[in-house]
């Protein structure tokens, strides 16, 4: 179970809470986490990454365990603390975006 923290616009759009828990199949990568998130909340498709290319939108950032994961390959395994649910994967709107 992975904990995901969503930015305000997106948890309101998904009609859920700021933090959601998502079951992610192995291997637990950012891509797998986003696939699971979009499967449960299809209205989020296109808002975090491109519909087709799956590239992260320019003003979206991924933070985990105090590190910036925005530019890591999307098939890289998430930190163990995130995979165990001890730490959340944070999806953040970049400060420059507003």
């Amino acid at each position, binding site marked *: 179970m992975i904990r995901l923290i969503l*930015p305000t616009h997106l948890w*309101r759009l998904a009609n859920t809470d700021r933090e959601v828990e998502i079951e992610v199949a192995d291997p637990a990568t950012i891509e797998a986490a986003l696939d699971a998130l979009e499967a449960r909340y299809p*209205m989020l498709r*296109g808002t*975090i990454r491109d519909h087709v290319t799956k590239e992260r*939108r320019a*003003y979206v950032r991924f933070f985990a365990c105090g590190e910036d994961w925005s530019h890591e390959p999307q098939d890289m395994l998430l930190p163990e603390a995130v995979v165990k649910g001890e730490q959340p994967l944070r999806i953040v709107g*970049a400060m420059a975006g507003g």
Partner: protein
Amino acid sequence: MSGVRVLVGTHKGAFILTSSDRNGRWDVSGPHFAGWDIYHIKGSPLSPDRLYAAQSSDWFGQVIHRSDDGGKSWAPVGNQFPYDGNPGTHQFYDGTQHPWEFKQVWYLEPSLTDPETVYAGVEDAALFRSTDGAETWQELPGLRSVKGHLWQPGGGGMCLHTILQDPADPDRLYIAISAAGAFRSDDRGQTWRAINKGLHSDYELPDAEADVGHCVHNIAMHPSRPDVLFMQKHWDVLRSDNAGESWREVSGNLPSDFGFPIAVHAHEPETIYVVPIKSDAEHYPPDGKLRVYRSRTGGGEWEALTKGLPQKDCYVNVLRSAMAVDTLDPCGVYFGTTGGQVYASANSGDSWTTIVQDLPKVHSVEVQVLP
């Protein structure tokens, strides 16, 4: 409820203003979609409680919502706008070629004939149609084949911002793009041609009378005379009496013929409204006076409408989709400003009242008369 419902799209959410008599109290609902840029929100003429709203965000891209209860509740619908095939390139600000890239929806036009059909005008300029209530979108790519490589962004981006349907001929559509010009389809959007003869863009284009490339800001028609079109271009107010085959300038005695919106009175097809803006570099009213100008002669002769509007120190703008008329008698006229005011006139513009004065920057205003 009976009365008037004004749909306002702003930089940080949508607002729905309702009144039973246009002269008394207004109920203000919102912000809906708080924090999102709402470029347009519009209702179906066939089913007035069916509303469509376009939300966009630099962070999170494009979202579309639909309501079936007049805006009390909303459901997210399709937000994927795939260009048909490889869209190629268009002209960029600097004259080089630049790939076509979807950025956002500027305009939503529900069909006059089918409540499940809605058109979307987008940036980079293209026209999309949904026939399933905005769940899925398909491009009408014939439009981009009309010298799309010569289209270029205006100051707001390369946007398809106006869609008009001919109520007498369901095959006929008009659209306008900044900066490409006006275009017409006579086969429900499959094929298109430029209708820009008579437009002169001396300061914007190397060929002032080019087929395409003109920065058309808005076009309007009266439903009883769909062959008569009115245009606010970057500079110049124009009219066409032959469905866009040719245009002539009707700026007349306007203090400035630069501006963004243009609207037609609901019951007088020769009565039109514009809001003169000082210049392309100075997006505010001349002399700090917010004046709507009305022509009762289809252009040429204009009168300033000032009663109830600020006549000193006013430096707001009125954007291209931010003026609308209702169909009551006398005709109501409404517009919103970049300063967050929404003004209403219940007497065809003779006098104005402020409905709200502190909203975010207003992108769009639409009006519905409720039974």
